[in-house]
């Protein structure tokens, strides 16, 4: 290998070594590399002087600016809370009616409520609050536990069949699985219940069966669903005469409900959302329903 070998393209000398045909030029390091090495080093030194940087046993260099990310975030949180206090105090203290009458506050409820709903409720009730199979729609007029802002706020606070001590509790028994009703009785009562909200179903069924279904209903269902089958908000028993159903209104779905019972579940948000947030959510939902379809 020639020690003094010059590369014809670049004009630089090689280092004189060769590995499997690979040579290296002895090109000096471009000055720009040294410039940026020094520039970034200088930047780092300045940053170290200004900010917390080097460990010193049990402590560390605090930096001239006295920056402390914990303090910074604490101050930012305090400032943000203070800024929101312009309206949060009002929502916390005013009555639902007063807030609903205040256009400015309701704008805030709509803005903030939408985010709260999306982050906390949409997983079950859907992004548009229209629910889905097993999860009730919140934009209809049918509310198991009441649709006033007060009632909604309370449901959010304690949940349904939740571990909260004040939880709303309801359970529909498993009439078929637990042997309370015979198979024919269930078939009849299913037909009868479906005829309540859908007259066309009633017309297609033999009057004798319908009468039998009504008898089964009177003996077993009125305690919760009421004489007129219009439900009971105190017990979370749904109105069976309207067209809303959580678990489906077709024959198979209603049969499954009567056969196996139902025990819906909603978590309590008492310890997860502040009273303010729960109040905003209740107002948001009432507002959404009013504006909705």
């Amino acid at each position, binding site marked *: 290998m020639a020690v003094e070998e010059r590369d014809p393209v670049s004009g630089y000398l090689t280092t004189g070594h060769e590995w499997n045909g690979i040579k290296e030029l002895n090109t000096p390091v471009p000055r720009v590399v040294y410039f940026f090495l020094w520039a970034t080093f200088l930047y*780092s030194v300045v940053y170290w002087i200004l900010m917390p940087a080097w460990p010193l046993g049990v402590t560390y260099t605090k930096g001239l600016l006295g920056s402390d990310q914990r303090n910074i975030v604490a101050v930012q949180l305090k400032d943000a809370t203070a800024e929101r206090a312009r309206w949060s105090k009002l929502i916390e203290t005013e009555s639902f009616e007063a807030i609903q009458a205040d256009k400015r506050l309701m704008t805030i409820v709509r803005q903030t409520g939408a985010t709260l709903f999306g982050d906390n409720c949409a997983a079950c009730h859907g992004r548009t609050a229209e629910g889905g199979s097993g999860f009730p729609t919140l934009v209809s007029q049918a509310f198991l536990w009441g649709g006033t802002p007060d009632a909604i706020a309370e449901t959010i606070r304690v949940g349904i069949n939740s571990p909260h001590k004040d939880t709303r509790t309801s359970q529909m028994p498993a009439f078929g699985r637990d042997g309370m009703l015979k198979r024919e009785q269930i078939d009849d009562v299913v037909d009868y219940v479906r005829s309540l909200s859908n007259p066309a179903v009633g017309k297609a069924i033999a009057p004798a069966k319908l009468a039998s279904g009504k008898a089964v209903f009177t003996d077993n269902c009125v305690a919760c669903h009421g004489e007129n089958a219009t439900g009971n908000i105190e017990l979370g028993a749904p109105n069976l005469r309207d067209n809303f159903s959580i678990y489906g209104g077709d024959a198979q779905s209603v049969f499954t409900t009567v056969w196996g019972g139902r025990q819906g579940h909603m978590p309590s948000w008492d310890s997860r959302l502040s009273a303010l947030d729960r109040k905003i959510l209740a107002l948001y939902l009432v507002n959404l329903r009013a504006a909705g379809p």
Partner: protein
Amino acid sequence: MIAQLTKSERQLALIILLALTICGLAMAIAGRQDPLGVHGAIVMLAGIAGIFGVIYVYYEPEPDEARLALYYDDPTKVAIILAMIWAVLGMFIGDWVAWQLVFPNLTFDASWSSFGRIRPAHTSAVIFGFGGNALIGTSLYVLQRTSRARLPDQISPWFVLLGYNLFCVLAATGYLMGVTQSKEYAEPEWYADLLLVIVWVVYFIIYLRTLARRKEPHIYVANWYYMAFILVVAILHTVNNLAMPVSFGHAKSYSAFSGVQDAMTQWWYGHNAVAFFLTAGFLGMMYYYLPVRAGRPIYSYRMSIISFWGITFMYMWAGSHHLHYTALPQWVQTLGMTFSVMLLVPSWASAGNALLTLNGAWYKVRDDATLRFMMVAAVFYGLTTFEGSFMAIRSVNSLSHYTDWTVGHVHAGALGWVAMITFGSIYASVPWLWKRERMYSPALVEWHFWLAVAGLFTYVFAMWNSGIIQGLMWRTYNDSGTLSYSFIETVVAMKPYYVARAIGGLLFLAGAVVGSYNIWMTIRTAGQPVDARAADLPVTQPAGVPALQPGE
């Protein structure tokens, strides 16, 4: 291939395989109530299969002495084939995961196919399966050529290659069964980690033994990088995986670290895995294949030195930039950030050194897709290191962290740099290894190149867009001083970018499939055997010096 082993090497292989089988049997019995038992069975089967393979050729005649006058390339050939298998598998799973983000039901209601399980299967298959096999294969090739010395023996390279692939199989199958340490890029549990430690030490010893017998006065740059890769990965892997198993019959273990120390150890490991596995190792690859393919000398030896020591020294400090604005003390974050900024200079010096090496050979870049793979790799190495240093700055990180920008960044590096330099190097070495004049179809190499480039750009642009939009949506406040968007709204906004990303991934995968076909056909098609590199021989031992093998 196994017949190339000498009698004593065949005996040693049987002893090792028997030990492996017994280990597997012990794991299968001790862990019969646990996923560990399944892994024991896999280990045992691997051992038994190996024993049958060796016994099959046990009484074949021994290889003649002439083999010692040649480089030992069989492990490299197998490593390249394994790398391509892992590439197709890993990229397929990756694209599946990408489509799951568009259509969440693509898990088909199975637990093993859920996002949390196949996502690490994707990362491990491409990083360790594809990248690792490519590194092992090329490093053994480059080591012998640049030292002009044959590997010291024929058993240890197989031990490394096959042991490493057993580790990869244990990793991937473990994730599907839910076995994980929950440490990103270090998910495999304690027994797989122990296997890798043994494999890795043997790998390093091969390097030292070959270098000790080199016939060149100096150690070539590529070997500095390959050695840094092996040595540092050994350290990182050992420290980050210090853990106590629940029992010898359980796959589960608990880390020696807890809380913020655990997070810091994990990201010291994680970032240096990027540095030494995905950067140093592949720089070693680039330092050999790029100048050889271009037929040009390395632009500057001096710049190589600055880059090497800059990269190895500064990367070690940078890991804490993964933990900005967390419980990690601020001073640690400062150090991680400032060293990440300084790191840009040696990184760009490396990328610049590679691109300036191409001066005088740009007409080849235009005509030769293989060299173009390497050129794009060097460009994306530069782009990604710039982006990385930029994202390490705290205020930038507050926008980019936890968003798809990170995903875009890592794929700019993984697809643009790591995969590109690997494909370039594989296309260069396949004809050399199998003594063919050229690849089966240069047109398919072009196809692969453009599919890869199209996939890369689609992917990276999609993730840049979605990442920045996501980051901005997360921090937007309305006039009331509360957040403007719920999380689910940001997910909905991401959907078009997720579709684009999955299409980009599909293009990249298609390129890898085309490449695998081309490589397979090159191997299968018996072309005219050519002695393209007539000087491709090690320096043979002068008479009187003891033979290299066996039992050097």
